[in-house]
């Protein structure tokens, strides 16, 4: 498999701030790779290192299997869709899209053909003469993507391109983006702080926090088997319980033992993480590995699912997502219930 982008032990410091901390990853050709993390964790900085706008304090950047650490941005085979789009306001749609091609001095008819193709791809044919100011947010978004894509970069970098859009448009554009990636087959590196977006679109996700990459894996790996508390909480909002592990059981203070799946651990302090949708809630529950008493505190009915927040006997709160399979089975605040989950659904993280 060809590697399109590789970062080797890249560190970037702004004075005392360590924006990117010893980051290494490889992105394969044609992959949709996401950098996921909270605001200020160094995602944009990582992208800017790949495009060459920032020079890493340490480490090497490879693009298309060549060292590019010292190559200036205008000579790199990357293109970026900026967080604020940065479309040229003095040029119309056609001139914006053809900007890169004109600099490469392609013949006029070739440029025209490519621009038309690209506008077709994002379903904006006939928009050539429009000014940027005359476009809606979603249209500008698509033009920005196409302006980068038309240069046929080795890798396309997208910095939260759906950030400023409203929810519905975001969802539409996410589907659109995935379709575009499928059709052109370019490698995408996608930056977002929205875990839902990252999970639905990516082939692989790198979760970042404080400039470090915590975990890299396919969406289901990262979702089902988080390797740190941060990843567990950031993706899927797991319930995290502190305890002591011994022989397949996690002892939790004031709650008792929790059976967990066969995991080879030494005894010691651990965190047990359970995803809210993997918890059953009911008046009577049996034949499940872990069953506890709880009191419902908050109920959020959301149509297909209902979200509960319940108080366990040790006074810790857990959140539960329950599919509304049968009508009229809602619990009310104050109900005494049982909550239960299976041992395979507990992820144990050593601390």
């Amino acid at each position, binding site marked *: 498999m060809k590697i399109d982008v590789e970062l080797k032990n890249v560190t970037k410091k702004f004075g005392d701030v360590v924006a990117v901390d010893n980051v290494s990853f490889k992105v394969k050709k044609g992959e949709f790779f996401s950098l996921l993390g909270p605001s200020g964790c160094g995602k944009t900085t990582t992208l800017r290192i790949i495009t060459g*706008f920032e020079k890493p304090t340490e480490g090497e950047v490879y693009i298309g299997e060549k060292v590019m650490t010292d190559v200036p941005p*205008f000579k790199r085979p990357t*293109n970026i869709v*900026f967080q*604020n789009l*940065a479309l*040229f306001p003095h040029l119309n749609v056609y001139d914006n899209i053809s900007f*890169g091609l004109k*600099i490469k001095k392609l013949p006029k008819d070739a440029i025209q053909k490519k621009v038309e193709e690209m506008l077709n791809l994002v379903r904006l044919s006939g928009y050539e003469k429009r000014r940027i100011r005359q476009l809606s947010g979603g249209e500008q978004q698509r033009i920005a993507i196409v302006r980068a894509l038309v240069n046929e970069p080795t890798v396309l970098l997208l910095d939260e391109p759906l950030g400023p859009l409203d929810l519905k448009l975001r969802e539409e554009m996410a589907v659109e983006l995935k379709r575009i990636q499928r059709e052109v087959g370019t490698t995408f590196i996608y930056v977002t702080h929205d875990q839902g977006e990252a999970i639905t679109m990516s082939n692989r996700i790198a979760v970042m926090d404080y400039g470090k990459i915590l975990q890299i894996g396919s969406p289901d790996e990262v979702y089902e088997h988080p390797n740190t508390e941060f990843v567990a909480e950031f993706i899927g909002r797991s319930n995290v319980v502190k305890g002591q592990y011994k022989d397949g059981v996690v002892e939790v203070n004031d709650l008792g033992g929790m059976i967990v799946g066969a995991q080879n651990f030494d005894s010691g302090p651990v965190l047990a993480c359970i995803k809210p949708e993997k918890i059953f809630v009911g008046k009577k529950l049996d034949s499940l590995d872990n069953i506890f008493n709880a009191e419902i505190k908050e109920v959020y009915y959301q149509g297909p699912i209902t979200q509960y927040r319940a108080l366990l006997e040790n006074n810790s709160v857990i959140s539960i997502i329950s599919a509304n399979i049968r009508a009229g089975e809602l619990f009310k605040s104050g109900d005494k219930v049982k909550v239960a989950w299976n041992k395979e659904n507990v992820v144990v993280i050593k601390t």
Partner: protein
Amino acid sequence: MKSEKNRERITTKQRILDAIRKSKKIREKITKQNILDTVNAVRKSEKTKVSFLLSHSLIWYIIFLIVPLGITFVISLWQMEDVNLIPNWTLENYVEFITEGVFNAPWLGVLLGFAASLIVITIIFYSADRTVFRKKQVMLARARAYHSHVLSRLSVHLFHCFRKALSMCRRSQFLYAHMLRVATRVAKLPQTFFERIWTFFHARALNDAFVISFLGALMGTIFTLILPRFGFSVILSLVVGVILSLMFWLLLIRRYYETKWLGAFAVATLATSVYAAISFISASPLIPSSVPLYAGVLIKSIFVSVAVTLGSVGVGYPIAYYLSMKVEKYKYTLLFLLMGPYLASYILLVFAWKVILDYGTAEGGGVINAVLLNLGLIKEPITWLMYNIGPVVFILIFSWGPWLVFPMFANLEKMDKTLLEAAADLGANPRQAFWKVTLPLSKPGILVAILFVFIPTIGEFVTPSIVGGTEGMMYANIIEGRFKRGYNWPLGSALSFILLITTLIMASILIRKVSLEQVMESL
């Protein structure tokens, strides 16, 4: 006082509440009528605002503009006898503008000659391109019908060439590429130098017809006005022009027409020969080397104004660019320092320059001359430093330059700097990014700067009167002379009025180049 404030607060609150209530209502039932109503309401309020503003500015206009201008205009139609104004309605003062006096300026003649031939040739070629070649099929058919006739055959040929020349000007780059290859190989010149020249001429703004006529006019001027001054006889330069012209046309007919430039030169030399022939037949250059005084000085003032504008924008833009793009820490301190020169009185500054540049004989002259004389580097004081148009332009450029930094800086500051990163990302090197992004986006700032300097400089009066001497006199000095020394108020008024009209025309041309909204946004 307090209660008034309170009341104000209450009314503001009330207004906000009303607005919210209104918007709620609108949200309840957004019908077409509703929207139209709100739009009309907004328009109405806007109208009242506008009329309010207008009433104020109208008063301002009447007091400071219309009344004095009206008086000027009325007086400009009167006459003066000894020291008495006589309300004797006449246009004589305006006639004097184009008849009176002699203004000797060979360079002006050359410039005017160039401008005139430029305009004429542009019109000819542009209209030829527009009309003749659109109908080429018809014309060719007609010519072929008389094909046996030698003359018509020649005309077909010529027509072809003419058309080729123009169409060549559009397309091909063959010869250029060849020249480039040869030149770079022979002279080991950097390729970019030629590329830059090429892109300049190739820029879309320069219409091909314009390029051709530009060259034509240039060569015409060289052959009929400049070469004779360097000892070539008029006949000799005419001969050179005709031979060159024939050569190019022969080349064209032999179909070495793969180039824009060959075509351009062919047409240009044709124009040259025509031009040269006319001035030869009329036994003198078409363009006189002297013009009526007032008109001449006005034209000279316009040229000075253009030079000062180009110079001061050229000085100011790099400073604005550097401050906005490269300096981070002391940006605003440096910007403030630019105000420094304006803390001193302008007259003082100009007199200081007089002290530096003067060449008075008794005192050994100004600083520069004194130093050079004392060092023994020169025997006689240098006289061209002072009392001509040079120091006027120089001082004006450097007094305007810093001032123009402000609008251009404001405009550059407003530019989104990620656009430059975007350009770099799309493959533009820093220079390309400058030409394709920064410069187009700073156009409004530059145009504001031009407006700032161009219009006041046409009427500039202080600088030329101190360092210009008689040779460096400008239009405003003449007006002053009419009012003071000549004591001819009507003529002075007429001259001022002509200046006003000129300025208005210039301003309107400039403003049409850019939308006012864009300009104001950039500030």
